[in-house]
């Protein structure tokens, strides 16, 4: 299985367009949104400035781009081409394919997270009180991206061919926007804030925000993410089995 993981990683790294899209794009968007923002003014009741808030949002957004968009399209395409069917005829366990896909996505999501941090620190002079916060932040966002990797696998098994891109994009932009990754949810009307609170993307960004404030992630956010992880993994497994029967 290690050979498959290595091969998947090298294929991902060779895909320059995808690397550019998921590594450069979130950092660029960060500069666009937080570039002119004040570094002292606190946003709503978040206790964080816009540059700090958006740093976590864009790192999360970048990680989601890498694991969700990359996985769903690749899996749907490879199912269509019959590669998944071919792999079923080898001794590779069923989960092996999915694990390799998630591992290769994780390799891209890490640089996209770090790159946002570097840009934020260099351009907007973002600082945190302790060095451990940077590592905790990286770790939390990287680990949390597993939830969206599972979603990517599920979408890859749900949709085929031409349908996968629009479906992925609707989910990707919908979740990013509703979860407050592009603009703080504090700017939303109350009814939208009530919905946003339960979005996996909101809980995901909240992990990072708690760490920025020097605390541990809130139990509620962790619970929401674990719940979504169970849901997406369950859906992915169910769709995979269904696909096995008619592969």
């Amino acid at each position, binding site marked *: 299985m290690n050979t*498959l993981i290595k091969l998947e990683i090298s294929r991902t790294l060779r895909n320059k367009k995808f690397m550019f899209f998921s590594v450069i794009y979130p950092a660029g968007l960060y500069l666009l949104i937080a570039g002119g923002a004040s570094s002292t003014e606190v946003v709503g009741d978040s206790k964080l400035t816009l540059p700090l808030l958006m740093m976590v949002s864009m790192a999360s957004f970048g990680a989601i781009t890498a694991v969700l968009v990359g996985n769903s399209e690749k899996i749907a395409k490879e199912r269509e081409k019959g590669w998944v069917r071919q792999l079923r*005829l080898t001794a590779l366990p069923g989960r092996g394919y999915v694990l390799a896909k998630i591992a290769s996505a994780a390799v891209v999501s890490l640089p996209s997270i770090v790159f946002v941090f570097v840009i934020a620190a260099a351009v907007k002079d973002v600082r945190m009180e302790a060095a451990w916060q940077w590592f905790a932040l990286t770790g939390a966002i990287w680990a949390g991206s597993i939830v969206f990797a599972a979603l990517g696998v599920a979408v890859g098994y749900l949709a085929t061919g031409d349908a996968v891109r629009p479906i992925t994009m609707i989910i990707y932009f919908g979740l990013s926007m509703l979860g407050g990754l592009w603009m703080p949810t504090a700017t939303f009307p109350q009814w939208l804030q009530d919905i946003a609170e339960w979005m996996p993307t909101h809980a995901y960004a909240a992990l990072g925000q708690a760490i920025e404030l020097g605390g541990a992630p809130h139990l509620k956010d962790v619970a929401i993410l674990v719940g979504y992880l169970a849901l997406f993994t369950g859906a992915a497994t169910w769709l995979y089995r269904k696909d096995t029967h008619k592969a």
Partner: protein
Amino acid sequence: MTTTGNTFTGDGRRTGAPVVSFENVSKSYGDVRAVADLDLQLYPGETVALLGPNGAGKSSTLDLLLGLRNPDAGRVELFGTTPQQAIARGKVGAMLQTGGLMEDVKVRQLVRLACDLHPQAHPVEQVMEHAGITEIADRMVNKLSGGQEQRVRFAMATAGASDLIVLDEPTTGMDVTSRQAFWSVMREQARQGRAVLFATHYLEEADAIADRVVVLHRGRVLADGSAAEIKAKAGARRIVFDLEGHISEATLRELPFLSSLEISGRTVRIQSHDADATVHAVYGLGLFPRNLEVAGLGLEQAFIAITDAATAEEAAA
């Protein structure tokens, strides 16, 4: 007209437990019965050709055999376990028409992956040499021709020491030389005691390579035996002659041992179970056949005769 695997009287190599066993297996897609009460056993060392017209259930049978689909009824076993378990143990090497290849990688990387995944893998270089892809080892998979892709699939199917090799239309897209090389490798595999099952629509391949031919028709086994037995079953010989003057079809229909009769212009074409007796009867009618030819049926004609007869029987029923 239906026979089962038990009637096979090949060269007596059938020993030990079956490698593949279908017991009363049925599979439907909606209203279409793709596989109907299929009973089939394959044994070590056999090279078996699976024949059938389009829609006969060949692909469905292979899918069931490889555990890519589950049967509605009945049981499919490979080496006494489920297909999935047999595959996980590296017992099966398979090459499907519908199987794709990983893109954006080199041929060698893909073959290395297949070897890495096989519990009893052969060395990568050896696998590539046998499949005839050593020269294209450094090419990208998505830049290959159809025949080259086919050979890469073959390399993946033979990456390790599997006891059963399943091939679906393996030589499609290959030129004559690759095809010959392919089958010489396959023969070697069978000599080492492996069972080889292949679906094909090149009947000459089935005739030349298989020591057992299974003809499927509407999801059932229509005939099962050596190529010679299948030919004998179809109405062994073909008689062709020209007649002068009036030709009475009704009279010719009365000839003994006739299995088919076709008249076009002056030419009469007959298939007969006993050509000697039929020809004798032609003279007995006082006819004088010219340019008389008597020849054995090819497997292809035998195959058409058998499946046509089955279709006619079903239509009459």
